[in-house]
């Protein structure tokens, strides 16, 4: 089974990670490398952060232009799409991805799961992100490059 990387919010043993074919990073250990917040807040912390995460997936052309110039990737969380009434999030995310593609921004994908039932492998994530306009290959790539920014 091909190895992929993920960010999670719960404890999981190394043997279980190996059986699932994933290498998990704990969110609490990566907090200093990921900038989280609204677009205005992300613009201020652009230099310090390795990865940007905007949970509301709002579109800020200034943020995209600066992030694209500095080669900063954006994080997409699958758990945001698994909540109740996620149709609005899917709509916002599809617009977000469309504009990010225009600015040639790298998109990193992680499940950000709180329990083992919320873990989604790249194939399942591709099924979900198909609704937002991403192809299977783009999703697989998004899962595979996480280690470059967190190691």
């Amino acid at each position: 089974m091909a190895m992929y990387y993920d960010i999670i919010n719960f404890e999981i043993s190394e043997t279980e990670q190996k059986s699932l074919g994933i290498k998990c990073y704990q969110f609490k250990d990566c907090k200093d490398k990921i900038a989280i917040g609204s677009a205005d807040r992300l613009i201020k912390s652009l230099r310090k952060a390795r990865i940007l995460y905007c949970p509301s997936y709002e579109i800020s052309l200034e943020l995209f232009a600066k992030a694209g110039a500095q080669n900063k990737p954006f994080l997409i969380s699958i758990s945001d799409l698994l909540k109740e009434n996620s149709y609005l999030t899917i709509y916002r995310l599809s617009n977000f991805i469309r504009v990010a593609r225009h600015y040639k921004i790298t998109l990193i994908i992680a499940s950000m799961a709180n329990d083992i039932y919320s873990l989604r492998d790249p194939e399942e994530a591709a099924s979900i992100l198909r609704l937002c306009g991403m192809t299977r290959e783009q999703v697989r790539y998004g899962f595979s490059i996480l280690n470059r920014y967190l190691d």
Partner: protein
Amino acid sequence: MKPTLRENYRYVALEISSETPLAREDLARILEGTIEFIGKIHYPSVMPRLAYFDQKNQRAIVRCLNQGVDELKTALAMTTHYEKDNTKLRIHLRPIYTSGTIRKAKEKLGI
């Protein structure tokens, strides 16, 4: 019926992980509940049905129409909870293999 007129099905082999083991009726109800994600308009092009269920190993094979496979997989990936006896139980339905025949799907499940 002529082969060109016949409907073509796909069999999706699933692995189930949940807080409590599911029964056949529970899974059938979950599949009917996928209409929430697929929608009434697209549901006739998917028509998921439970073809095989292994209660001991918590594995199943779902039959659907060939043009609705992607939508079924999306609906299964987005299913996170199942309501039973007024309690919400967390579940994860993971598609392992999609096949045109139920025999091959059973082989992949190890049956």
